[in-house]
């Protein structure tokens, strides 16, 4: 890892060793954030977060969505949010997001654990024939046509006697 002095002298560099130092040295991280908050974003891999198809395609897609929502709004309701307000709101969200990132600089963990949610479960279905003596047998389960209908399961097994 490069020395703190070298790091601080090359703050604007995007060399891997500079970013590595930023990830590992908290003191330099604080220093870098004070000088240039964007460095922190690059350090956590922000550069890799380019949308598929590139930024231009992404922006065009967003604008298409905005136009679509405008068209929907003009039909469904009469009060339309002006694009300027949308742009201002987006800018505000970006500003808040970056501020939160800078404030949260000391905490690098971004792992998200799955949270179990209790949900209603319908009855599970099990195979009628769970095991059968002969692996070569063919077992056909005919689904019943409705509640109360008998369900037919046929076992075709060549090893069975003919005079069952």
């Amino acid at each position, binding site marked *: 890892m490069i020395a703190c002095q070298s790091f601080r002298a090359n703050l604007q560099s995007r060399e891997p060793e500079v970013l590595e130092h930023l990830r590992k040295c908290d003191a330099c991280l604080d220093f870098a954030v004070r000088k240039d908050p964007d460095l922190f974003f690059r350090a*956590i891999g*922000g550069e890799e*977060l380019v*949308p598929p198809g590139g*930024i231009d395609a992404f922006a065009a897609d967003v604008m298409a969505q905005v136009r679509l929502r405008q068209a929907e709004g003009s039909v469904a309701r009469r009060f339309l949010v002006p694009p300027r307000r949308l742009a201002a709101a*987006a800018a505000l*969200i*970006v500003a*808040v*997001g*970056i501020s*939160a*990132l800078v404030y*949260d600089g000391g*905490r690098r*963990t*971004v*792992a*998200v*654990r*799955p949270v*179990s949610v*209790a949900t209603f*479960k319908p*009855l*599970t*279905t*099990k*195979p*009628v*024939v*769970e*095991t*059968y*003596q002969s692996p070569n047998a063919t077992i056909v389960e005919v689904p*019943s046509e409705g509640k109360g*209908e*008998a*369900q*037919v*399961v*046929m*076992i*075709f*097994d*060549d090893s*069975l*006697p*003919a*005079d*069952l």
Partner: protein
Amino acid sequence: MLTAALLMVTGASFADDAAAAAKSLSVHTFTFKYKDADKAAAMIKPLLSAEGSMSIQPSTNALVVTDRTENLRAITKTLTEFDAAPQAFRLVVRLVAASRVEGNPPKVADELRDIAPKLAMLRFNSLEDLGSADVVGREGDPGIVTLPSGYRADFKFGEYDPASDSIKVSDFHLSKLQSEQLTSLLKTTLNLRIGQTYIVGATKAPQSQRALMIVLVARK
């Protein structure tokens, strides 16, 4: 960039929650009265969180589970339901010889009218009742059916599964008395939904002219 920034903010706040949850791990020991701890372990495995763990104590038939408090609540509920006293069930077993005959088939007996339409779809138009029996038993009990026609079925009432509302009929072994000797016909394990009628047909091949139909209904 906007999306990336929003994702980062959301990710960071979720990370706080996850870290806090990891700190609140609890340990609970479940001792089972009726069921096996190893079966209970297999049952709750999908319910454990990433931080959760468990160990089986065979000597006391107990399961020690470590997990987040909210997960332990769900696990406790599942295990309490699982460790219920063995329930009693009634299994109705009927045997029917079905065959395909040319020309006018014989009249279907009244006691076989409920299954005749289903078997007619399989082109079995001649049915012969080989007898029936009711067997009552609790989970884990053995059951034996002996019919005057020479057929005999040995089985075990397996465990009831609330998730599928079905009971396992384990080691269902059908044999036939021929020349004063029992000949084994087939051996299988079945899952029967409570109240549902099953017609399990056994024959050599789809084009066989004769099949043995085992009609089963399990009730609580």
